[in-house]
């Protein structure tokens, strides 16, 4: 008994010793943090600031970010993060912005996590006086079940003051949780920082620090002219510091992405239970080894590359046989299989989900691919995986973990096809616009099938014709009213937004169930009279009414009018099948706007019917960053206007224009044919990326289209 007790006591004592030895930032109290950050009481010499910065609302004089990552005990890991700002407030807006702060801290997760945070504020007045804010007194705290909300108003803040404040938080995790994560996800991330260097305000001095211990393998990479090119040693062998000066403000996004155009720092820490070598440690000071860790990628692909699931392939073959489709080419069969799977995993359940107001079924893209791969193998079709990341996150070489990777299945037909699944409207061989034209890593099996071969690949960009919007509008003028009979159709990358807005489950689910011979759940024609049938019929009617309202709103915006009467609208195509690749609708509407009476004549704003175009103003022609356009596109309009009796049409010469360059084109022609004005326009943007120096060429196309949109014709009384 005594021995047992002694053993027990020994364990208790021994497990506490590492905690005592590991006295680091997470052990700190608030006063300890303040000693670290508040070590310079001087005001600021505004003369040292760049002249143009003195006109700014505020300037960050000092910005420090410190990450500390340590083993806190044999079982635990702690991550401390300290942010310290020293900001001089140069106008009232800055005083208002910095005078109120809101925080919330959560205790979340099913695993025990200790989490602490605190904040501190002080003001340095121009006369050198320092006022420390009593956060205990000033902070208002409200507690919820899982959240603690805090807000504070900073007293006595004025223009010219320097606000010196910090935010500290600390999180603790168990080591075995990390191991679990690594096992299931293929890599482990603990510190994961995409540090965007610029801030809302310009920064005079900036410092980035990382402190670890011998258990961490650190990778640091500066991207897009990030100023943190070199990390020097700080206090202790695992302390890395990089500093820089004069960082310009972030600026607003204008058709670009921060991680593509602004400087940022990628920081990754691998937890290594063994000690890391001196060499590895020094590697962390300068540059990253983690471009893409091939081993991580290959381990990741081992789980997915060959994983296949057979559950639906047999049913698909029966479907082909039943519908006399067994002689389809392999390409067509693969395409049909895509829609077959889409139906079985998601679409066939939509009526049920809608009726019960449940979340729509989902299948992960990877699971979808697993079913697909089975079919490809059975049909002896070769495939690869492409690993990429959306443009908004940067480049594939910039990823920090496999969680950022978007895997695409590439089917190696003569003209490759690409598979990506993300819901009920997914289409075969259409990829998300966020990954068109991006670099990726192609993964294919080695000849002996035992390994993978990785190579670079660029995902093709679609062409404008594939993403076409077409509209035909027949316009009649009478009694100060314009009546329009229109038809529009849209496909490719332009399609999803129309489907999400206009296509309802009632439009296609029942037909799909019939086509694929699956249970026609919720089909009113199969239901007996009763509450359920009434409800479904009511839901169908509701969505028809909603569609009309939505379409009216869409037309109102598109035509730039406030009032419009939508007399009729009908969906013609939905873009839901292999053959049916467009959404299209026909409509009839009237409006009194777009016409101005001038004496006995009428001005008709015919240009407003040619789309909703964007104007690039003179000061927007010069850019600082490249341009990322959502996708290449084409818009064509054919508008006919019947010229009423006793009127002649003037001004059609103003409707002819043309411009073309390597980035696109805009062409417009107007003729009179059989008493009608026929106006044809075609707008094309060929690319989804434009270098900043070539932006004026694109702007010229946009402005030409915009100019045409503002053109008017005169109906002159004879």
């Amino acid at each position, binding site marked *: 008994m005594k021995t047992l007790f002694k053993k027990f006591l020994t364990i208790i004592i021994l497990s506490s010793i590492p905690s005592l030895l590991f006295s680091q930032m997470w052990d700190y109290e608030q006063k300890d943090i303040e000693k670290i950050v508040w070590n310079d009481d001087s005001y600021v010499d505004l003369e040292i600031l760049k002249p143009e910065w003195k006109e700014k609302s505020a300037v960050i004089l000092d910005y420090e970010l410190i990450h500390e990552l340590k083993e806190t005990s044999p079982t635990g890991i702690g991550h401390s993060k300290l942010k310290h700002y020293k900001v001089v407030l140069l106008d009232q807006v800055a005083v208002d912005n910095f*005078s109120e702060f809101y925080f919330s801290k959560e205790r979340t997760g099913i695993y025990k996590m200790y989490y602490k945070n605190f904040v501190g504020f002080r003001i340095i007045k121009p006369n050198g006086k320092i006022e420390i804010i009593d956060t205990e007194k000033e902070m208002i705290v409200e507690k919820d079940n899982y959240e603690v909300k805090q807000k504070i108003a900073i007293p006595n803040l004025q223009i010219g003051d320097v606000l010196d404040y910090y935010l500290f938080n600390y999180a603790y995790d168990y080591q075995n949780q990390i191991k679990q994560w690594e096992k299931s996800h293929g890599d482990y991330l603990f510190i994961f920082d995409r540090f965007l260097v610029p801030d809302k305000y310009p920064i005079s001095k900036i410092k980035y620090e990382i402190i670890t211990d011998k258990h961490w393998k650190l990778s640091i990479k500066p991207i897009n002219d990030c100023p943190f090119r070199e990390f020097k040693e700080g206090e202790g062998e695992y302390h890395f510091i990089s500093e820089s000066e004069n960082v310009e403000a972030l600026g607003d996004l204008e058709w670009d992405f921060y991680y593509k155009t602004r400087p940022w720092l990628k920081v990754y820490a691998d937890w290594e239970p063994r000690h890391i070598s001196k060499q590895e440690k020094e590697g962390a000071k300068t540059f990253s080894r983690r471009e893409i860790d091939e081993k991580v990628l290959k381990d990741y692909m081992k789980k997915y590359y060959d994983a296949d699931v057979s559950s639906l392939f047999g049913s698909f073959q029966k479907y082909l046989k039943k519908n006399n489709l067994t002689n389809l080419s392999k390409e067509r069969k693969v395409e049909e299989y895509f829609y077959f799977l889409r139906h079985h995993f998601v679409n066939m359940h939509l009526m049920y989900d809608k009726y019960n107001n449940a979340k729509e079924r989902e299948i992960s893209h990877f699971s979808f691919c697993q079913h697909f791969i089975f079919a490809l193998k059975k049909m002896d079709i070769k495939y690869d995986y492409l690993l990429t990341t959306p443009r908004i996150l940067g480049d594939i070489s910039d990823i920090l973990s496999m969680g950022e990777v978007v895997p695409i299945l590439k089917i190696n037909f003569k003209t490759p096809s690409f598979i990506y699944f993300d819901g009920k409207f997914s289409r075969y061989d259409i990829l998300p616009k966020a990954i068109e034209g991006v670099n990726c890593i192609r993964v294919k099996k080695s000849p002996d099938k035992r390994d993978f071969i990785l190579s670079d690949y660029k995902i093709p960009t679609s062409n404008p014709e594939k993403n076409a919007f077409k509209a035909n509008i027949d316009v009649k003028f009478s009694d100060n009213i314009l009546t329009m009979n229109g038809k529009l159709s849209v496909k490719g990358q332009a399609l999803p937004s129309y489907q999400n807005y206009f296509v309802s489950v009632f439009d296609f689910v029942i037909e799909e169930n019939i086509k694929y011979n699956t249970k026609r759940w919720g089909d009113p024609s199969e239901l007996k009279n009763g509450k359920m049938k009434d409800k479904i019929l009511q839901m169908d009617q509701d969505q028809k009414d909603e569609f009309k309202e939505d379409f009216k709103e869409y037309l109102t915006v598109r035509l730039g009018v406030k009032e419009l009467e939508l007399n009729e609208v009908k969906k013609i195509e939905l873009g839901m099948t292999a053959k049916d690749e467009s959404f299209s609708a026909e409509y009839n509407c009237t409006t009194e706007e777009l016409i101005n009476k001038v004496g006995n004549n009428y001005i008709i704003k015919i240009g407003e019917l040619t789309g909703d175009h964007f104007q690039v103003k003179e000061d927007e022609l010069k850019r600082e960053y490249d341009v990322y356009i959502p996708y290449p596109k084409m818009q064509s309009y054919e508008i006919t206007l019947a010229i009423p009796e006793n009127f002649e049409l003037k001004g059609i010469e103003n409707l002819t224009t043309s411009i073309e360059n390597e980035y696109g084109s805009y062409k417009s022609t107007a003729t009179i044919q059989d008493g009608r004005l026929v106006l044809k326009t075609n707008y094309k943007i060929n690319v989804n990326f434009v270098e900043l120096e070539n932006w004026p060429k694109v702007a010229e196309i946009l402005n030409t289209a915009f100019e045409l949109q503002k053109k008017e014709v005169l109906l002159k009384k004879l």
Partner: protein
Amino acid sequence: MLKAKLLFFSLTILANFCVAQKDTQKALEMGKKYPKSDVYITQNNIDFYLEYNKPDKTVIAIQKEKTSLISLNSNVSHIFTKNYHINSSYIEYARFESESNYNCKIYNLDYSSNNIFHHDEKLKVIELFFKQRGDYLSFVSKKRFLDLKYIEPIYLANLRPTEEKTIKLSIENELEFEILELNFENFDIEKKYEFDEKKNLHKYEFKIKNPPYIADIDDVRGTSFHLPHILILPKSYKSKKHNQEYFKDTKDLYKWYSSLVDSVKDDDDQLKPFLKTLISDNDTDIEKIKKIYYWVQQNIRYIAFEDGIAGFKPEAAHNVFNKKYGDCKGVANLTKHLLNLEGFDARLTWIGTNSRAYDYSIPSLYVDNHMICALFYKDKIYYLDGTERFMPLGHNAERIQNKEALIEDGENFIIKKVPTQKANENARTRTTNMVIEGNTMLGKSIMNYAGESRSNIKAYLNSIENDKKAKALRDYYDSDNIEIKNINYSKIQNFDSLFSINFDFVSTNSAISFDDELYLKFENYPDFKHSEIDTSFLFDYDLHYKKEIRSRTSIDIPSNYTVTFLPESIKYVNSDFILEINFEIINNQIIYNKTINIPNGLIHQTNKEEWNKALKELIEVYNSNIILKKS
């Protein structure tokens, strides 16, 4: 017996089935009647009790409310809120009475308005979600007022269309009280009264079918002006167990306000050093007053961390000064003390803004919702509102004009009305000259702002960062056809003078030639283009302040052209607005004049149709063209 049970069971199901069918039918019917509303309240009952509460040893009020509603559309989210002050009331419970779904929630929030959060005013939020048209939900709540002073007005109206609303009051006989029935005259309200001798209770019932509703309209000035409501005025409670005094008259109200003010511990010594830096001995009295008033406006932020007796007790002046923030009471108190220290007779003043329809003949906390400072100087009273931005001395914001001000006067008080200003004191004038060049017009504009229009534009500019002001102004005046260049504006911090903006511009596609004719667009800033009033709502349309817009545009006629068509002039004059547009040709220039004057800042119900008619003609003029022909 079994057959009877089965029959009963069947009938019950049938009854429920019929009720469900009826709700859908009702939803369709009401949906057609109220196309802009997503929900319809079938019943809203309020039971209000005023009674002595033994455990609390005070007289309390309890408000129990039940609301039942149906959805007029599918997938409808709707939010109700119940507000309370942490020191004076609380919500005992709020819960769903009917079966709700997982998307329905009840939770707490801080009350906030205009991005200012209020520390002691809270909201109980009842978030509803309806899956289908005709779905039914009901919820109940109970609110407790810890002190009868804080009983709110009870409205016979809702934010959504309602079938019927009933308010029942039960008031102990020991309470001396008055019930004011306000705005009842235009509505058909059923009233009942009885005295329950057994329980010694006064019982009132008010019932209204299809009560009026206001749904999220910013353009209506104060519900208390229009909607029928009840104000309960407790005066005293006398019984063997308990005696309590409330407000018998305005004197009592003032006495209570005064007691709160007296309890504030101001320390003027903390303000004196600052005043030495602000005021110079050579300053005239008016200069001193301006310095103090303008300094407060520019340097004290409005942050409503309200703390203290439901927001009625002012913060000490030195605290507001030291923190550089405060609410209206704290700011008024600071203004008063700074002026007093300089020897001026400045006093705290309670006032209800123009969202409150009451005056001080009613002894209620609901008469006022704001505090300012009244300065007595040379037979004149200046009303100083430190929460305003860029308000010059001698001017008053629209929201307090013509309102009664309750000014402290030791143990007594003074009631004065804040003077009204005319629309032309808020004038925005614009002078523009344009020349034709090809199919564009090149122009220069000078805009001058006075009064409220000046305060608004300055407040807007003041909210933009220094280095972005010019661009923000450019964007403000830019439009699809207009490109602004060379924009200049006068100093924002100058309180007393007119605020001016001038710029050059290019107006593209505004001179279109058709053969030998030139069609000119002349209106670059179509005021009130989107101001048509929805006449289905029964309330006056609030334009927020008295407005006057005057613009004069001149267009040089090219030497080889003559004017062949000018749009027709229009003129509308009534008690609520003057709208005048005319065109002239003077010295080879086309002169286009526009005047819009709104003397009350309101379009009354009776003038709405005329307003819409005038706007329609105005828009036709805006869209019209001037025609020149080559000679």
